[in-house]
Every structure is written in structure tokens, then in C-alpha cells.
């Protein structure tokens, strides 16, 4: 019998129970020394894997992370570990000692993975008031002539954060981030940390609206990374598009926990428009099903398409296919030159009956292929209110098709119109398989920038498949915590297996991530420890290791298939906090503020006063007015908290 290796593995793991098959496999093995060797290799590997997993001192609460629950915990208390020579983790400030999250695994439950129970101590702030979901319908109705609520509009109108969010085309947080949550991870066990490149661009605005209404936000709703990234930093930009990313690291003492440090990792991309923008071949796939019959749905899409028709270049092409009705080709691929024809066809878009999503998508790809532009920007763009996958007959087949076309150079993007500001995994997953972009449009305000501007801006994609990775050196770092970027609380079923995100990065994109580090106290003199081990075994060549972290950006430059890598080693002692740069001190102040609002166990003993004085002293250039606006928000939060307390006294 021809024995394939997958079957061999299965047999070795005891998965094959049929005696006939077992006999056949054994015969095949006996006859082939080569197979025997392969089998032995698998066996050896399995044993070592088993050892490695057993040796993990902490049982993972989820499969993509190995949380170190509390640095305070003595490693020796865990189940027997061969690593007893690791020292006790350095003690922490008393504030941390007050907060313990106990993670218990219940192996008796029917779920084979066990269940995780986390108990959380009570918060110390005044009772949090629930944050109503940021509802842009007020803006919508405002602009479309309905009844208006001015206070929210006024807040948004004067908010530089809102303007920046619209202008800079930020996307909602990537949903497949391997969640670090608010926990420290061991640098020894999990030295690699991936920094998400995107976050909720409206995170700061949500906070503004809550404060504008005189309320503190719900702790879980505060997204620290969104606050930190809403501020404009003065990073130097790369000179050449050939090296499109610059990394800016800085380390300082943690202002809220003694003995710990803050590491800022900043990514700044080349920010000038690229030399020769490509022409576009767009095929819009518009949802005309019943649910689109709202004044802020199909009409909004039509307005968006009009905005695009006005800004597209004569050499670009656009076609429109509808679905959710009798899927039909509404407009065949037309050059921008023929503007009137495009505008007329947009006017004529109307609702249909029935549903035929699969055919609609295939039709759109067919058109994109027929008018394919060599070296151009070829895209299918799905426009819907969110129910995009409901009418699909065969989703696996569809996903495969979309993935195949993406490989062939026809990407798929997805836009949700009037979906509201919650995440909608259907749209995001679709865009991810299609390797295109995604976005949410809620008002005519968004169209010019977030929709038309985005689409015409996509011809200047800088890079795709960008992955920002930080590797910690366990000899310098005991454990680390990525601040913010917690996974969204709602469980939404994902369409596909989590695949690496292949979102695109445009010129000027910047991201700032803050890590809190617990430095390693082992090995003041690495050589003495090494010498002990060396005496007992073969001498091993040790590389001199002095860096704190190695930061890497993997990316694929637009238009090329070769993957590139930028790698930077960062070392050095942390500066005293007062000597850190304006950018870092301000970011720390914003983080401190976010942690107070979240009632984070790591917030230490900083308060609003500390935030105000720290941020106030680090205003720097105040680019975009974001820093003074932030100070305003902190004062508001302080006033709200004080009035809550004085009300409680009565």
C-alpha cells in the first residue's frame, strides 16, 4: 500500500483504529527503512513538543497567547517545571498587589478546552454610566434635513480628532489581532509580539461625545490605543519610497509603576504621493435588496458614486453590477472620459427584488477581467449595508473564488453604508480575503474623503501584507504588556479561518504602540551563568546579545511580489521620565488617562492632575490641534468626576 505521510502521522498518533489498515501500514513500514526513519522523526518531534508544552508554566487561556498572569507570582509555585533556576520575578508596587485576576481552568466541563473564569475586583471610580452607542444618525438627519440634536454636532464640528479620522481614512480595529488584552506576557515564552497596524479611528470621538454629554464612558468602551493614535506625533518621515517605513523607538521609566519601563514603538511611512499613480478599473457591486430602501442607504451609495464620478480621471474605468435583485450589469465598464453616461447610470440605480449574491460577485469579476488593466488598480468594490453574506449560497466556494482573483491581481474591497459604528465582521472578512480595503460610511460628510478620496487614493498604495513585529530579548525583558488593542468584547462569528491580515498601507500611515516592560533581573553577568552550564556540556557558541528589542517590518511593496524586511535593533537604558521626548511623555499622559477611565489594574496611582500636568508640559508643536483638544477633554472628565463625587456627598 502506498503510504502517504499524513496517514503515517495519524497512525503514529493512534488515530487509526481499523485493524486491517493498521496491518497494512505496519507492513509498509517494515518494508521501507525510509518510512521507518520518517516515522521515528515524527516520534521524536512529538515527544519534544509534548515536553515543550508541558514546560509552559502557565496554561494558556487562549490558543494564540500565553498569558503570564501576574509577574508577582512565584514561578516555582506552578506545576513542576524544569526551569527552577529562573529567579523570582521582581516584586511590584502595592497597587498591583491589590488586584489579582485568578484564571481557573475547569477540566470537568464538557467543553474540552475547559472554561476560563476570571474574577475582577470592584472598580474604585464613581459608578460608571453606560455609554450610549455613538450614533451618527443625528448627524445624518441633521444634514438630510431631519430633526437635529445640536450638541453632538457641535462637538464633532469643532473636533480635530473627528476631522482627522475622516481625512486620514483610518479603519476600524483589525479583528484577528492575537489579543494580548490587559495582561503581561512572558518574553521567554512568547518573545514575538505583533503590533496591529489599524485601530478604531473614531475611538477618540466616541470619548469626546460621551464627555460632551456630561458622562464618563463605560470602562470597557475606552480604547487606549485609539486615544494614543489620535494624537499627531512628530516622527521623522522616510526620505525615499524605496525604504517606505521608518521605526522610532524610545524607552523611558514607567511613570505609574516603579521598576517598570515604557517602550514606544512608532512606525512612520513615507508620506508623499508616489511617482506614477496607476489608473483604476473599478467594478462596483451594489446591494439593491430590500434593506437598502432607507434614505441613508441606497441614496448615500449613489451620492458616493457621484462623488467618485466627479473625481475619477478620464483614463479610469468604472462599471456597476447590482445584486440583491435580479443581479444585473447596470453599467458596463466605462471610461471616466464618458462622465455623463456614468452619472446618468448612477441616477438610474434602483431597488430590486430577490437575492443572487453569488452570481453578482461572479459577474463583477467577469467584467473586471474583461477590462483588466495591466499594472493598474483593478478592484471589485462591494457596497452594502452589512448583510452582504446573508444571500450567499456557497460561502466556501465564494471565498475561494475571491482569494483566487486577489492572487490574480483583482482585489476586492467592501464598504458598509449606514451600518453604524460597530464592527461588522462580514464586511471586514470579505475585504481580507479579497486583499482589499474596507470602510464604513455613515453620512454625506464622509463621502468625499472616506469614500471617493479613499478609492482614488488607493492607486497609491505603498505596501501590502505589512506586519510590524517586536521581538523581545528575554535576557533584558522579563515580561511585557502591549497597552490597548484589546480584543473586542462581542463575539462575532468570523467568515473564515483567521488568516494574516493583508490590508494595504497608504503613504503617510503611522502607528504608535506602547509597551510596558518588566525588565529582567537575571544574569547581571551573563557569562557566569553560561559558564556553569558550559562546564557540564559541550561548549555552545553564544551570540553577544545586548539589544532590548528587535523590531521588524515585513511588507510587500506595491506592484512587486518580493517580500521585503526592515529590521532595527534597539538597545539602551530607559531615560528618566522627565527627560523623555515630548511625544513620549504626551503619549504616556494619554495612556494614563485611558487607563484611569478603564479602571485598569495597571493604572498605578496617577490621576487627572498628573495627566494634565504631564500632557500640559509636552504640548510641543500641537500638530493639528490634537494636544490642546485632549487637555480640554481631560478637564471635562475631571469636572464630571468631581461633580459626581459632590453629588454623592449629599
Amino acid at each position: 500500500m502506498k503510504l502517504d505521510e499524513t496517514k503515517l502521522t495519524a497512525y503514529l498518533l493512534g488515530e487509526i483504529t481499523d485493524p486491517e489498515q493498521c496491518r497494512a501500514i505496519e507492513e509498509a513500514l517494515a518494508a521501507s527503512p525510509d518510512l521507518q526513519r520518517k516515522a521515528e522523526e515524527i516520534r521524536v518531534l512529538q515527544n519534544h513538543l509534548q515536553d515543550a508544552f508541558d514546560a509552559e508554566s502557565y496554561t494558556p487561556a487562549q490558543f494564540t497567547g500565553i498569558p503570564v498572569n501576574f509577574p508577582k507570582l512565584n514561578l516555582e509555585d506552578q506545576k513542576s517545571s524544569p526551569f527552577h533556576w529562573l529567579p523570582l520575578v521582581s516584586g511590584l508596587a502595592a497597587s498591583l498587589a491589590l488586584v489579582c485576576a485568578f484564571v481557573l481552568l475547569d477540566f470537568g466541563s464538557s467543553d474540552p478546552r475547559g472554561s476560563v473564569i476570571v474574577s475582577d475586583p470592584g472598580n474604585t471610580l464613581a459608578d460608571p454610566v453606560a455609554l450610549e452607542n455613538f450614533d451618527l444618525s443625528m448627524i445624518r438627519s441633521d444634514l438630510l434635513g431631519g430633526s437635529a440634536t445640536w450638541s453632538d454636532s457641535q462637538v464633532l464640528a469643532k473636533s480635530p480628532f473627528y476631522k482627522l479620522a475622516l481625512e486620514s481614512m483610518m479603519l476600524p480595529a483589525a479583528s484577528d489581532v492575537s489579543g494580548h488584552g490587559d495582561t503581561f506576557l512572558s518574553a521567554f515564552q512568547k518573545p514575538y509580539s505583533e503590533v496591529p497596524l489599524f485601530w478604531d479611528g473614531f475611538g477618540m470621538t466616541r470619548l469626546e461625545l460621551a464627555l460632551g454629554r456630561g458622562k464618563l464612558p463605560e470602562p470597557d468602551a475606552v480604547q487606549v490605543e485609539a486615544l494614543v493614535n489620535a494624537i499627531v506625533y512628530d516622527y521623522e518621515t522616510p526620505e525615499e519610497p524605496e525604504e517606505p517605513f521608518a521605526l522610532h523607538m524610545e524607552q523611558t521609566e514607567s511613570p505609574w509603576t516603579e521598576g517598570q519601563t515604557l517602550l514606544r514603538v512608532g512606525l512612520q511611512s513615507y508620506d508623499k504621493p508616489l511617482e506614477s499613480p496607476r489608473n483604476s478599473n473599478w467594478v462596483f457591486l451594489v446591494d439593491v435588496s430590500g434593506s437598502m430602501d432607507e434614505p441613508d442607504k441606497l441614496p448615500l451609495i449613489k451620492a458616493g458614486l457621484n462623488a467618485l464620478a466627479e473625481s475619477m480621471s478620464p483614463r479610469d474605468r468604472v462599471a456597476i453590477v447590482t445584486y440583491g435583485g435580479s443581479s444585473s450589469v447596470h453599467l458596463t465598464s466605462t471610461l471616466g472620459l464618458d462622465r455623463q453616461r456614468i452619472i446618468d447610470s448612477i441616477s438610474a440605480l434602483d431597488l430590486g427584488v430577490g437575492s443572487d449574491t453569488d452570481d453578482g460577485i461572479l459577474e463583477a469579476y467577469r467584467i473586471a477581467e474583461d477590462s483588466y488593466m495591466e499594472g493598474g488598480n483593478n478592484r471589485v468594490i462591494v457596497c452594502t449595508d452589512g448583510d452582504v453574506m446573508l444571500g450567499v449560497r456557497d460561502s466556501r466556494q465564494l471565498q475561494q473564488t475571491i482569494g483566487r482573483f486577489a492572487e490574480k491581481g483583482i482585489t476586492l474591497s467592501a464598504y458598509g453604508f449606514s451600518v453604524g459604528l460597530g464592527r461588522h465582521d462580514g464586511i471586514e472578512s470579505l475585504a481580507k480575503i479579497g486583499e482589499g480595503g474596507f470602510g464604513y460610511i455613515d453620512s454625506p460628510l464622509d463621502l468625499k474623503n472616506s469614500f471617493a478620496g479613499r478609492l482614488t487614493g488607493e492607486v497609491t498604495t505603498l505596501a501590502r501584507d505589512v506586519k510590524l513585529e517586536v521581538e523581545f530579548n528575554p535576557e533584558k525583558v522579563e515580561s511585557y504588556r502591549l497597552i490597548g488593542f484589546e480584543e473586542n468584547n462581542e463575539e462575532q462569528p468570523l467568515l473564515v479561518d483567521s488568516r494574516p491580515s493583508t490590508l494595504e498601507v497608504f503613504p503617510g500611515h503611522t502607528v504608535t504602540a506602547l509597551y510596558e516592560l518588566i525588565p529582567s533581573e537575571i544574569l547581571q553577568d551573563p557569562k557566569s551563568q553560561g559558564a556553569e552550564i558550559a562546564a557540564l556540556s559541550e561548549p555552545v557558541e553564544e551570540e553577544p546579545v545586548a539589544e532590548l528589542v528587535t523590531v521588524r517590518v515585513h511588507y510587500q511593496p506595491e506592484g512587486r511580489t518580493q517580500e521585503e524586511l526592515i529590521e532595527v535593533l534597539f538597545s539602551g537604558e530607559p531615560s528618566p521620565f522627565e527627560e523623555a521626548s515630548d511625544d513620549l511623555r504626551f503619549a504616556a499622559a494619554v495612556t494614563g488617562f485611558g487607563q484611569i477611565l478603564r479602571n485598569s489594574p495597571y493604572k498605578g496611582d496617577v490621576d487627572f492632575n498628573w495627566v494634565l500636568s504631564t500632557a500640559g508640559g509636552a504640548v510641543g508643536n500641537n500638530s493639528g490641534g490634537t494636544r490642546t483638544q485632549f487637555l480640554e477633554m481631560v478637564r471635562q472628565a475631571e469636572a464630571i468626576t468631581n461633580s459626581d463625587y459632590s453629588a454623592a456627598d449629599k
Partner: protein
Amino acid sequence: MSLVDTPIMEHKPSDELRPDQEAESHDLSRALLRYVDRLTPAQQEVLRLKFQSGLSYKEIAEVTDKSVNHVGVILHQALKRLKAHLTDSGETIFNEL
């Protein structure tokens, strides 16, 4: 010695190792875990469900909503990948074979 007789999943008690062996195995475990982290999320999940939680292919298939065959393929690919990482980095554990 027939491979059938050899217990595959027998766990070597770590405290029976000599200190130098312990250090070596510590390095290897650490390297292995690092490589595991480099696998795709699907591979990592299946690997851990198998070797950490001790589920059978069938149980893994149920939990991850895949077919049993698919699970077998993912697991095999994961092991193959790990082996390649180890060999590339100069690991000698396969040399005695």
C-alpha cells in the same frame, strides 16, 4: 523493535534529566515554542488541541468545525514545518536516527 509497541505519547519525566540535558531540553523547548508561534493560527490551534489538550482528531474536528481529514492534513503540515525549522536552525535531535 516494532514501532507499534513503542508508546508514542509517553511523556518523559523531566526531572530524570541531568542538568546539562535539562538545559539543552530547555533550549529546545524554547526554540520549539517559538517556532510554534510562527505557524499559522489554524496550525497552532490544532497542534495545541492535540498535544496540550490531548484531543483526538475527531474531537478536534468537532471543536474547530473542520473535517477529520482536514485536521490530519493541518497537523501533519504543522509537524513538517516545525521539523523544517529545527533542521534549518541546526538542531541535532534527528541526527541519531
